[in-house]
C-alpha cells in the first residue's frame, strides 16, 4: 500500500501540568518529521492551563515559524464572557479550528459560555474540537452541534463511549471523531461500517501520547485503501484546508 499523506488533527505543544513529560514545540516537530506528517493541527498548552489569549498568540507564532502546523485556538469558558470577544478576533486572524477542554479544565458542557462558544463557532463556520471522554459527553455535545449547526470533532472517544458516539454520529451529520484513543480491536472498522469513513479524523495526541499507537492502529486497520486515506488525511484536508 502506498503511504497516504498523514494529517494529524490532535497535537499540542508547551507543557502538561500533571506530568513531567517533554511536549515542547521542538519535540512535537521532531515527532511529526520522523513520521512524515504533512500537516498537524496544534495548540499551545498555555491556552489550556494558564491564559487562552497568550496561548493562542503562541500557537499563531508557532504556525508562522513551522508551516506544517495548522493553528488551533482555544477558549476557556471559566473566564466567562470575555472569551467570546476573543473568538471573533481569532476567526478574523485566520484560525481555522477551535478547541475546548471541558474535562481537563473541569467545567460542564451545560456551562452557559459553552453554548455561546458553539453558537458563535456555528456562525463563523469554524469547526470545534471538544473533549468527550466521559459517557454522556458525546450526546450533550452532539445536541449542541445540532442546535447551533456547528461542526464538532469529538476528542478522546474510546471504547467506553463508542456505542454512544456512533449513535450521535448517525443522527447528527455534523459530528466528527478523532481517533487518538479509539484503540479497540475493531472500533474504527465498526464506525466505518456503520457511519462511513468521511467523519473520522486521524489524531495522535502527540507528543503527550506515543504517535505510533494511534498511527499503527490506523495503518493496520481492516479498511479499504480509500477509507484509510480518508481517515489519515483527506478528511482533514476537506474540513480544514479547502475554502
Amino acid at each position: 500500500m502506498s503511504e497516504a499523506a498523514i494529517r494529524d488533527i490532535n497535537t499540542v505543544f508547551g507543557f502538561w501540568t500533571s506530568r513531567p513529560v517533554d511536549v515542547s514545540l521542538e519535540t512535537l516537530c521532531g515527532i511529526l518529521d520522523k513520521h512524515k506528517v504533512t500537516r498537524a493541527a496544534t495548540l499551545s498548552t498555555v491556552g489550556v492551563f494558564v491564559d487562552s489569549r497568550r496561548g493562542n498568540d503562541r500557537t499563531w507564532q508557532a504556525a508562522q515559524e513551522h508551516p506544517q502546523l495548522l493553528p488551533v485556538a482555544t477558549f476557556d469558558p471559566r473566564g466567562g464572557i470575555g472569551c467570546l470577544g476573543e473568538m471573533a478576533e481569532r476567526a478574523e486572524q485566520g484560525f481555522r479550528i477551535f478547541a475546548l477542554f471541558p474535562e481537563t479544565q473541569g467545567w460542564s458542557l451545560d456551562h452557559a459560555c459553552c453554548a455561546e462558544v458553539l453558537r458563535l463557532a456555528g456562525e463563523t463556520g469554524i469547526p470545534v474540537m471538544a473533549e468527550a471522554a466521559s459517557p454522556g459527553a458525546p450526546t450533550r455535545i452532539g445536541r449542541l452541534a445540532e442546535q447551533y449547526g456547528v461542526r464538532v470533532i469529538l476528542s478522546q472517544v474510546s471504547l467506553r463511549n463508542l456505542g454512544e458516539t456512533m449513535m450521535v454520529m448517525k443522527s447528527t451529520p455534523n459530528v466528527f471523531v478523532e481517533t487518538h484513543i479509539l484503540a479497540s480491536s475493531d472500533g474504527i472498522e465498526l464506525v466505518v461500517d456503520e457511519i462511513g469513513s468521511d467523519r473520522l479524523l486521524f489524531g495522535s495526541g502527540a507528543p503527550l501520547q506515543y504517535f505510533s499507537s494511534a498511527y499503527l492502529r490506523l495503518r493496520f486497520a481492516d479498511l479499504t485503501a480509500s477509507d484509510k486515506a480518508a481517515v489519515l488525511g483527506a478528511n482533514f484536508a476537506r474540513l480544514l484546508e479547502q475554502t
Partner: protein
Amino acid sequence: MPIIDIHAHYGNWVWPVRAQALDEMRAQMKRFAITRACVASSVAIMGELAEGNAAVAEAVAECEDLRAWCVINPNFLELSLEQIQKYVRQDRCVGAKMHAAYHMQPLHSPLTEQLVKAMLRYDKPLLVQVRGEADLAGLDALAAQFPSCRMIIGNMAGPHWQIAARLARTRTNLVLDCGGPCADRDKIAYAMEQAGPNRVVFGTDQPLAHPVFSIGAVRDAALSPAQKDAILQGNAQRLFGL
C-alpha cells in the same frame, strides 16, 4: 521481535467490540508476531466465573500458543477458591486474575487475603486490574502482606500509571503490565526507571485495545532494543516459565 502478550481476553463484552473466534485471535497473533497470549475470560470477569473459566480452559487445551488466567472474584469466595484449585495447578494456566471494576471490593480485605493464600501453593502470579488510587493502595498493602506472591498491575492502572510505577519501585513483588489503551508517552520508560529492567511486561488488553496500539507504544518508548525485548518477551518468559 517475538512477543508474549500477558494480558488478553477471550469472549464477548458489553462494549461494541466483536468477540473473536479462536482462529481469528490466533491469526491476529501470528500477524503481529505474538507467540504466546495469556487470556482471561471476559464472561468470567463480568460475573459468570465457572462458565467463563471453563471456556478458556477448553480453548487453551487445544492451542499451544495460548495460556489461561483463572478469573477469581472475592464476592464469590468459595467458588473462586474452587476455581483456583481446579485450574491454577494446570500447566497451561499462568495464574489468577481479579478485576476490581467488576467485583467492586477493596483489594485488601479478609476475602482477598484468602484468595492470595490459596494462590501461594502454586507459585503463580496474580494479575490485578484496578480502578484508581484507592485500589492501588489496597494492592500495595496486599503485596506487602504477601511478599512471595507476584502481583501484576494490569495496564499499569491506566491513567494512574505514575502511582503504579512508584509502588513497583519499593514493592519488589509488583510487576507492571505496560500495555492497554493508555498511550501516555512517558509511561513505559518511567515504568522501567521505577521497577527496573526485569519487572515490566507486555499486555495488549485485546480486544479492548488492538495489539498494535500497545506495540506502537513500545516501539516509540525511549528505551534500548534490549530493554524493549525484555518487555516484549524476556521478562514474561522468566515470570511465567515459558
